[in-house]
């Protein structure tokens, strides 16, 4: 289950070489983080930790612990990497967190406009609005919405490869697709997972959060959204 990460960078005054360098650096960071946090690599720090073979944790791992605890707390346990079969699995948050780190590297390279898309988890440099299409959960070639994005957006769904989400409380997964927008992609990523699992229960939590909006599509095709969730206006074609 690899993830495709794509970058959109406005070169501006930067030379091709500068852009190449900063993209290589960003890719290098993603691979280093993958080496550290992959549950599929037996020698990753995460795997050693899960196997009880690590005495200490790195500063990066501690940062992920902290973010996971925060995300678990604000989602009232609907995102809970400690309740995954096989032990602590922060994958639902780390992908977004890693994309943020890649974006920071690109920003340090001097560009003023950039977007990182890590398999549908998207973060952008502030200052512009990017229209982000949300893939239709039941029609791979269509979108179900377009969302103006100024910082971070993530979508979690059960349509990708069957039911890959785990309900921490043992119930049915509520949504076929759940999208959350907000400031920090790491948190937004985790909340999208929580929303997909918890549906209306989590939507109510999002409603109370500052700067976080979201919507989900239930199995019967009904759409639910937070009251301030904004969609770009596009004409829906007559079917």
């Amino acid at each position, binding site marked *: 289950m690899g993830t495709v990460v794509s970058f959109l960078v406005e070169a501006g005054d930067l030379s091709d070489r500068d852009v190449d360098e900063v*993209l290589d650096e960003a890719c290098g960071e993603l691979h280093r983080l993958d080496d550290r946090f*992959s549950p*599929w690599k037996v020698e990753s720090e995460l795997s050693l930790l899960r196997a009880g073979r690590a005495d200490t944790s790195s500063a990066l791992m501690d940062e992920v612990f902290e973010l996971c605890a925060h995300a678990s707390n604000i989602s009232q346990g609907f995102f809970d990497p400690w309740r995954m079969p096989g032990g602590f699995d922060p994958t639902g948050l780390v992908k977004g967190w890693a994309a943020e780190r890649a974006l920071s590297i690109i920003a340090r390279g001097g560009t003023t406009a950039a*977007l990182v898309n890590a398999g549908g988890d998207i973060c952008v440099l502030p200052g512009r609005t990017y229209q982000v299409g949300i893939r239709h959960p039941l029609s791979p070639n269509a979108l179900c919405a377009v969302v103006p994005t100024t910082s971070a957006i993530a979508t979690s769904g059960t349509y990708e490869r069957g039911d890959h989400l785990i309900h921490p409380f043992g119930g049915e997964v509520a949504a076929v697709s759940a999208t959350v927008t907000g400031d920090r992609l790491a948190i937004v990523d985790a909340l999208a997972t929580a929303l997909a699992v918890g549906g209306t229960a989590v939507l109510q939590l999002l409603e109370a959060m500052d700067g976080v909006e979201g919507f989900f599509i239930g199995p019967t095709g009904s759409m639910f959204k937070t009251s301030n969730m904004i969609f770009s206006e596009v004409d829906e074609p007559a079917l």
Partner: protein
Amino acid sequence: MKRRTASDMRTQLKGPLSVLGAAVVGFFGVTTLHSPSSSSVPVSSPSSRTTSGSTTTAPPSSPGATTTTTLAGPSANVNGSAVGQLENYSYGQLAVKVTITNNRIVDLKINSLQTLESYSQQLEQQVVPMLKAEVLKAQGTKIYAISGATYTSEAYAYSIQSALDKLHFK
């Protein structure tokens, strides 16, 4: 929050944003393809392929299943597009089109996607908007990225690899 129309976006963007890099990283996964400017392309062997619906807790592929192919240096200038072979994923088959300019992947898109009958039939129950890319384009709505669980990345990566092979990009 002020809504921006598509035309606002166009004037706001002074220069066009261009896709300058696309990397397939095996992020938390079994299949890894480096960006073309990287020095190696680790690819999982076909033995690690799964066609059933996988979960995030799927058993790890054996580390021994990874092979490394060294990319040709910058002297071998690769340009062009190729469509990878159809690969199975949970709900059907997909093929990815890869475009390379000056040894860098500049575009990746799903060229063809076939869904299983039972999957498509669920569409009839939907009331969620169904927005087609062509329609959005006709309206002048520029979509910068797509959010959504991506199609099984293994099938995606295998198709990309076969497209790269067709371009003799190794």
